[in-house]
């Protein structure tokens, strides 16, 4: 591995990320899969770092699940997006940040499509006006929430109570990073570090003391793949994708996985249990599994949040081995408190 080569690629894919004043939109599925992640994100930016992140209860799903399942047409999803932009405009914001990778991909795709086909944008504006009597400005900046945490990574590191270091050995934790496909594979220039060697999560891990693992199936899909999973008959594809990734990363002995997508942490986490049931194979040190986290959860652990306030008890793969390595104290009895 030539580290300088990666740094060169990273320098080619820098992205402007505003410091403050964002209109924040949640993810429809993250609130179910990892409910505390978005709460933690808002708590970090608002209360730990005193930044202005506004959200409204009036926003809806972006329609991404339906779009990638081919059940709604493009003009419909564009009109949904136009309404979200109208809410941002009415709230007086210009910076738009999405919690969901698929939403971020769809917003990016829509803005790029409008750039190439302005007549389509005009039609969507007309659709929105007819349906809701709303108008909108396009965001001046579009970011994914992981871009924001990437931007703030050093400020988080400065407030860290724990680092991504094995307290027994003093060695950096070995971390697998997994980027959601919709983050930068469609538009490499819109993601920090591009598509082949993305830097958005790597930058966080480096700042917080960990060591990134580059393994052969790093670029491979987590296994969600929308119709791979949403169509029940295809779920074998979903599982085999995830299995392929774990077989590939296993020799590198990762301590944990960090992700920035709704589906990826879910499938990398849940399918470990299924693989164990089907194949009798368990990954990770002492066959305890490889804990999988969202980037907000990792930021929360670094900042000293209680693991159970971060919602880590809803993970299928136990997180305690990682907490022990980092020296994070936790109350076992509180894990399932209501």
């Amino acid at each position, binding site marked *: *591995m*030539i580290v300088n080569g990666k740094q060169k690629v990273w320098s080619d894919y820098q992205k402007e990320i505003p410091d403050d004043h964002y209109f924040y939109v949640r993810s429809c599925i993250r609130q179910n899969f990892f409910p505390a992640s978005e709460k933690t994100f808002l708590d970090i930016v608002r209360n730990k770092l005193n930044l202005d992140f506004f959200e409204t209860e009036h926003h809806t799903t972006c329609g991404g699940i339906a779009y990638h399942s081919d059940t709604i047409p493009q003009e419909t999803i564009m009109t949904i997006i136009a309404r979200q932009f109208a809410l941002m405009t009415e709230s007086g914001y210009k910076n738009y940040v999405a919690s969901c990778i698929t939403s971020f991909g769809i917003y990016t795709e829509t803005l790029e499509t409008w750039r190439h086909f302005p007549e389509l944008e005009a039609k969507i504006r007309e659709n929105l006006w007819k349906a809701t009597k709303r108008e909108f400005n396009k965001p001046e900046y579009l970011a994914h929430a992981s871009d924001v945490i990437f931007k703030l990574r050093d400020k988080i590191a400065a407030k860290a109570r724990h680092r991504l270091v094995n307290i027994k050995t003093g060695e950096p934790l070995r971390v697998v990073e997994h980027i959601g496909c919709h983050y930068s594979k469609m538009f490499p220039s819109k993601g920090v570090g591009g*598509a*082949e060697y993305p830097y958005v999560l790597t930058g966080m891990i480096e700042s917080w003391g960990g060591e990134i693992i580059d393994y*052969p199936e790093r670029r491979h899909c987590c296994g969600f793949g929308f119709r791979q999973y949403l169509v029940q008959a295809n779920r074998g594809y979903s599982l085999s994708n995830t299995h392929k990734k774990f077989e590939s990363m296993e020799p590198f002995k990762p301590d944990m996985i960090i992700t920035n997508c709704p589906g990826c942490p879910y499938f990398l986490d849940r399918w470990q249990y299924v693989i164990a049931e089907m194949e009798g194979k368990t990954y990770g040190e002492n066959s305890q599994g490889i804990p999988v986290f969202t980037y907000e959860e990792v930021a929360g652990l670094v900042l000293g949040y209680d693991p159970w306030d971060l919602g880590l008890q809803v993970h299928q793969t136990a997180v305690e081995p990682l907490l022990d390595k980092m020296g994070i104290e936790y109350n076992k009895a509180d894990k399932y408190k209501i």
Partner: protein
Amino acid sequence: MNKEVLVIGGGPAGLEAVKQLKNLGYKAYLVEKSDKLGGHLTKWDRLFPEGISAKETLEKLLKPIAGIKVFLNSEVVEVKRTDDLFTVTLSDKTTFIVSSIIVATGFTLFRAEKKEEYGYGIYNRVITNADLENYFIKRSDNRINNPSKIGFVHCVGSRDEKVCNRQCSKLCCVTAVKQACEVKELFPLSEVYCFYMDLRMYGRYYEDLYLEAQSKYGIRFIRGRVSEVAENEDGKLVVKAEDTLSSKPLKISLDLLVLMAGMVKNDDNESLSNILGTRIGEDGFFEPANPILRSTEGNSMGIYFAGASTGPKTLPESINEAKASVLAMHNYLSNRV
């Protein structure tokens, strides 16, 4: 009649043009932007398909240049046309007046790191055709350590709209086959794979070389593009491709991967074209007056082209174009008098 002519570019086409100009009694000025003559030929070991020495070929091209005024590390920064003459200014402020200009500026090798998925500059054992040729000359490269499995990827940066290079680079197919055979000679126990889209073995004896690669050297040709390259825990390369003949995805572990970087336009073609008042094609190479009947002539009188300045060319084609270019120029100047 002013019998002074400027040749821009000191590669094989430029050298041959200077030789021909000298034979016809012209005084040639040769301007080369790098610090030595010979262009890409200086980086080759043996030439396809016969295996002729590149070094000896270059020596033969350089020999007639003795006595010619050569400007190394120089570029043309201004050309003023007055009637039938050109007043040329170089980057070192040298100025001279010539009656014609031959553009033999050649090509640039595609920067393989732009195909990020192949990992050139990221993974230690990914090299380019130029790196391998350099190894053949020097027999030293710490990335090449008795490899047992070697892959060649054809069409890297050519025939690739994703990197804005639609053109076929023309000589990479036969170069890959030549280099695959040479690698097999150096490492007889190795397994060698060529990943190709289609093989364009159009030149004389190219097909024979391709046959020999299979029958004598046992090189395996796989029709399919490599999709991505990664590194496993022991530093070996993991290469994913599709075998389109068997319609199956393929994953192979290799000790060395050679990227056949294609020929692309020079970055300064457009600025030079503006200085000369010539035209540039969609592919970024210079556009001749007529691609069939006047392929070495510019659209304005007194400007001529030779070699890869007008698109990817083999070495013999470049040499022949240089001769044709000088002849066209000679006819123009002779008739003008």
